């Protein structure tokens, strides 16, 4: 026993150690390094080595109107996308939660957008939205509606992108909520029915409150992802027309790989990190409240 006493005594630390090292190297280090860079003036176009400038990069980026627009655009995109996905996702889950012919086929169809590669989705939707040869305008025209410019106009680009996000990610919410619904016990519903509650009342006052923690979990996951959306926007518009669909993540990418202002790009990413962190914390609080 003696030789293994060290292991025995430190099992609590030893077993999770590989995971801790992994997290530290691959998650915490990049975040700290980005934070470090955000206090420098590292700029590859100057060709000079970087130096510490304190909060100078912060002051410069935060005062930039383009940054403020990107920030509000990120919030708008996320808010509308997640709200629509939340309502649609829950509604579809409730419809799918009863037995009907073809239910498994319907579930399978729901999975399809989820497994599609975002960049491929972007390319297909680009063709779909093309104002001249795209299917979207063709469909509108064939039913006699006026044609749109979709992602080619700064007025409609964000709603068009939200539509793609909704198409791809609503099924995720549906699937999570479906799993939650399947795990609920039937008794409260039966009890309500015996008490004479209508279907709507059962849904509104029994089922939804019971499944609320699951809905909020799905929403947190979607929220974090939507705030960080990059692939679809980058593949479809690259932030354009002009800067009309530039979110924080796209702006951060442009600052680092098109402008090569690494220090200032880090500022944008630190802000994005804080935004995601604060939003997740808020929803987690909400979730805790809904459970009690």
């Amino acid at each position, binding site marked *: 026993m003696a030789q293994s006493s060290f292991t025995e005594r430190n099992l609590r630390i030893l077993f999770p150690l590989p995971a801790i090292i992994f997290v530290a190297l691959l998650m915490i280090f990049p975040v700290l390094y980005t934070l470090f860079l955000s206090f420098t003036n590292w*700029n*590859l*176009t*100057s*060709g000079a080595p970087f130096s510490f400038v304190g909060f100078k990069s912060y002051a410069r980026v935060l005062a930039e109107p383009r940054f403020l627009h990107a920030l509000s655009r990120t919030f708008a995109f996320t808010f509308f996308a997640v709200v629509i996905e939340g309502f649609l996702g829950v509604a579809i889950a409730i419809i799918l939660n009863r037995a009907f012919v073809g239910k498994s086929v319907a579930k399978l169809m729901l999975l399809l957008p989820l497994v599609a590669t975002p960049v491929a989705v972007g390319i297909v939707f680009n063709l779909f939205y*093309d*104002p*001249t*040869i795209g299917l979207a305008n063709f469909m509108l025209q064939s039913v006699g509606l006026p*044609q749109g*410019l*979709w*992602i*080619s*106009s700064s007025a409609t680009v964000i709603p068009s992108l939200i539509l793609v996000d909704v198409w791809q990610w609503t099924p995720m919410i549906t699937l999570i909520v479906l799993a939650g619904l399947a795990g609920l016990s039937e008794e409260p519903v039966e009890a309500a029915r015996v008490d004479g509650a209508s279907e709507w009342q059962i849904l509104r006052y029994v089922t939804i409150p019971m499944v609320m923690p699951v809905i909020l979990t799905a929403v947190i996951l979607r929220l974090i992802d939507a705030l960080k959306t990059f692939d679809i926007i980058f593949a479809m*518009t690259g932030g*354009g*027309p*002009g800067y009309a669909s530039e979110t924080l993540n796209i702006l951060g990418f*442009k600052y680092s*790989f*098109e*402008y*090569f*202002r*690494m220090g200032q790009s880090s500022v944008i990413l630190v802000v994005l990190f804080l935004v995601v962190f604060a939003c997740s914390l808020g929803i987690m609080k909400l979730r805790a409240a809904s459970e009690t």
Partner: protein
Amino acid sequence: MRKILVFMLGALTSLCVSMGAMAQVKEIRVLLANHPYGDLLKSAIPEFENATGIRVNVESLQESQLTTKLTTEFATNSSSVDVFMTRPLQEGKMFYKNGWYEPLMTYDFSDYPKNVMSVSTFGQKSYIVPLVTEWQVLYYRKDVFKEAGIKVPTNFTELEAAAKKLNSDSLAGIASRGKGAAAVTQASSYIYNFGGLYLDKGVAVFNSKPAIDALRFYGKLLGNYGPKGVTSMSWENIMPLFQAGKVAMWTDASVFYGQIIDPAKTQVSAENVGIANFPAGPKMNSPFIVTSWGIAVAKQSKNKDLAMRFLEWATSKELAAKGMLANITMARSSVWEDPAILAKVNPGLVETRAYAAKFGNPLDRPYMSAVGEARDLIGELIIESINTRGASANLEKMAKEKVAKVNEILEDTGEYGK
């Protein structure tokens, strides 16, 4: 347990031995662009490997991803790249300033035109071997012109008249890039022909009267007669429209000619596609003719001798001749003087190149290290002008602001006035 250990030890030893053997193999890593010449090189590399015994590990990337990858690897000092394709006008100055190019002291540059070499040389040394040149041309639909009974425009007045006449619900009179930064290169010839410039001796001057007039003209043309949604279009959006027969005229780089007459890719038959000199402006006719791609050796390379051998081969006259036959417009002068090659190259390309080589401007964008940012700023003006069909009341004011910003960037990077 012991057996497993012995097995693993054995496996490890044999791995080490085989890795040692691999180290004996002469190997280089080459990064190419997804460009017709990159593809040609890739398919010819086995010949080089067989002839020299050097193993070439090739990676092909889309142009902006290539820049991103090279920048990341070089900036973090972690690169194992030996040779790479590079865009002199887009990244040349920045890569040079950061010391990422190896000077090419032994290379024979005598076969390259002087204006082409001007963007490959910094100080006394040359760092990039030019591969491909491209110049701005006017593509047009011969059948549409014939039907309308008009001739191919040779100046901006005729260009506008033709665009107006040919424009209809099912056909855009004219197309050219409208997507902000991407449009900057294509608007350059318009600006030159009005007598303006982006930068003059290291100072931003695109708020001059001729430059503003040119931007207004560009916006008026595309806003009135361009395809729908042109402000989000680069060449990759316009080409399919042209191929689908939805565009009557298109001003863009000569490099796309091969693709728009390729019967596998287009619905418009090759005999209906015309190529002509870029039309003259009120001041002159000086379309851009630029070195769009070059190739260089990485300063960080640990196999510089092998890398140089690859570079010499990849830029050889033989391969340049092969490129010409595949409709790739190579930078070497001699291939444009060889009658045997010219007999097989499309005459439209030969003629338009002869004109651009004589009268053209070797830059198609603000030539500076922070070119990406400057292009975005100028792109804002182009979008504003297109959205207002050239009539924006704000354009002068906006241009003044953007010029100030570009000058500020030039000062930041130590390039102002140089």
